[in-house]
């Protein structure tokens, strides 16, 4: 019997209730346990209760952590290529996002990660949008002069180029900062827009329902050191169950995109969707800033971007 530890940063719940990323982790654990007839057992550590969010990726590489469900781009400082997991405007719909796994870009990304000691188990994508204190931010012009938290290096670059005043602050201060006006817009996943309860302090929301420039790869990953030690059938089982759960992830992300709209509407915020025209403008800005910056990092990044652009 092998005991495996799965860590993530999201609020803990049960298989049937709570944050879908925690639910997915638990469903994965239950299903693999069942099909392996108890040969593989899991402990789930939600809410960063095992280790700091940022330490998970590197712990997996070292074999000190078995599995983790974590935004891939968080490891961007360690493996520059993974920044492609949250590249503004590079992915604009779920259909495109879920096509990555079997496209050249996905295969190349998996190869790079495997090289770095990480096995991709489940490809999970999330859409996101922007909550704001004033008018909704749809067009790049709307962001001009606004104090916005982009949440990642690449988003910040695009927002800055659009004329926004980019602010950085820890995520536990987002609510307070929106409340006091220290920041006027927050760009993040639909799920986080709900869990941060920003609707209480926002007047507008731009959703991901009609496409978005904000799509984040947030895979379930496994340590290669640990994976390679398992017998072939168990390896296959893990990958199979991981792949099967992608449908659940897609359904849940889409539900959260709808749900966030409902929540903000209830709070009397103005809820709008992204328009294709605006999306293209954002994409143009991103291409000139974040994409360019990314492909200039190294040849491997440049190649990855080229492959990703083929899916557009």
């Amino acid at each position: 019997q092998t005991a495996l530890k799965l860590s993530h940063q999201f609020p803990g719940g049960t298989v049937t209730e709570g944050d879908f990323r925690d639910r997915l982790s638990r469903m994965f654990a239950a299903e693999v346990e069942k099909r392996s007839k108890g040969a593989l057992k899991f402990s789930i550590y939600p809410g960063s209760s095992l280790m700091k969010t940022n330490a998970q990726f590197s712990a997996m590489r070292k074999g000190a952590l078995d599995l983790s469900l974590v935004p891939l781009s968080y490891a961007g400082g360690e493996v520059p290529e993974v920044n492609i997991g949250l590249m503004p405007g590079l992915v604009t719909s779920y259909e495109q996002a879920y096509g990555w796994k079997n496209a050249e870009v996905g295969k190349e990304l998996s190869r790079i990660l495997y090289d770095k000691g990480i096995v991709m188990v489940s490809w999970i994508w999330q859409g996101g949008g922007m909550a704001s204190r004033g008018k909704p931010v749809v067009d790049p012009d709307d962001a001009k002069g606004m104090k916005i938290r982009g949440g990642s290096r690449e988003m910040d670059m695009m927002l800055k180029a659009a004329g926004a005043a980019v602010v950085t602050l820890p995520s536990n201060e987002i609510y307070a900062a929106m409340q006091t006006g220290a920041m006027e817009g927050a760009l993040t996943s639909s799920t986080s827009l709900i869990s941060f309860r920003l609707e209480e302090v926002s007047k507008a929301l731009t959703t991901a329902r009609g496409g978005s420039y904000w799509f984040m790869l947030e895979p379930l990953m496994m340590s290669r050191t640990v994976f390679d030690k398992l017998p072939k059938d168990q390896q296959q089982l893990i990958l199979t169950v991981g792949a099967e759960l992608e449908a659940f992830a897609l359904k849940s992300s889409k539900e959260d995109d709808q749900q966030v709209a409902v929540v903000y509407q209830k709070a009397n915020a103005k809820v709008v969707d992204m328009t294709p025209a605006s999306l293209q403008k954002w994409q143009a800005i991103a291409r000139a800033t974040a994409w360019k910056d990314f492909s200039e990092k190294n040849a491997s990044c440049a190649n990855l971007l080229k492959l990703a652009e083929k899916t557009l």
Partner: protein
Amino acid sequence: MSDLTLGALYGAVTLVVMFSGMPIAFALGIVATGFMYFFMPPSSLDTVTQNVYEEMASITLLSIPLFILKGAAIGKSPAGRDLYSAIHTWMHKIPGGLGIANVFACALFAAMAGSSPATCSAIGSAGIPEMRKRGYSPGFAAGIIAAGGTLGILLPPSITMILYAVAAEQSLGRLFLAGIGPGILLVLLFAGYAVYRARKEYRMALEIYEKGGQKSAYLEDEHFTLKQKVEMLPRVLPFIVLLIGVMVALYGGFATPSETAGLGALLALALLAVIYGVWKPKDLSPILGSSIKESTMLLLIIGMSLLYSYVMSYLHISQSAAAWVVSLHLSKWVLLAVILFMVIVFGFFLPPVSIILMTAPIILPPLREAGFDLIWFGIVMTVVMEMGLIHPPVGLNIFVIKNIAPDIPLKDVIWGVFPFLLLMVLAVLLLCVFPSIATGLPDMIMGAK
């Protein structure tokens, strides 16, 4: 070995190592790495340093040195004494006014400094001799300062609240606001008791004098002219400016809590330079040096405690302990009582910083499950930890008093502190009955949660 047995072993080993007198930071680290070596895969040992770094590299935590600097700038300069004298000049006519003045001075200073011992030593070094000169019994004088000093972690800014906010994932700004109501409540309770006790001691002194005994200094009249009083006013002004300036920056949407820490420290240093002419490296170096010493000591404990809680979590000790507590199906209030009792026991030996770091992973999940508001609990826990600061055997504030006034026997200090402990218990009860004492202000300013 079951998770709970392993947990008991972990606890026992921790106890032994801690009581060996090993510095808390190293003790936490050594116990954690020891258990990693014996019970965890070897690769865990490779993650030790990165884990510690990740824990420390948080801008929220690293505002601690700056909050300490702000307190030290005032506490270790003539500014602290001025603050004290000014309040004293205005309050001395009220019966027990000197006691009240000391409580108020502690509160004002607490609102600028982040830690309790800092508050204690800043006000106590002027306050205790002054009170004794005026006839206050040594135990009473020590009690006022020890208790008043505990306000340091309840009134914002507060180092322990920073750690709590990070551990409980609550907004630091909201938590800071929640500390103000209970802080004022304690100030009123302490001041009320000071009046009562001072009048009692005054009557006793009068009785002795009338029977032909010694004339206590209680009976001497002190007088300040109006001119003297007015002259003292501008000396308080800078503190008010500093206090309000920082509050406006934080709650007016100008600065994040960590930026506020930097702003506050810089403002405090600027005040020293402009008003007291303290700006030369020679004058500043004791202030900066002592701030760094304290913050280095604290941050090393904070960093190492991450290893400690990581091992606890990895070996499923925290989860099993938390699950065990939940499985007892204690009623909400019994659960709270049990947890607070545990905090008190920890308070016998450990400083608040270590208590929060070591207990948070175990106590927060059951509390969350029981439906307690974690902002409210953070405040209650802070008051309970304040009690730990002044109750024996290990009370940091009592150590501070021993340093300021070594001639007051420990027994007197402990007896002097005792009534204040009762008042703090009363405050905790009031907080349980009227939670809005804590949550009212943040709800009003930042909107209901």
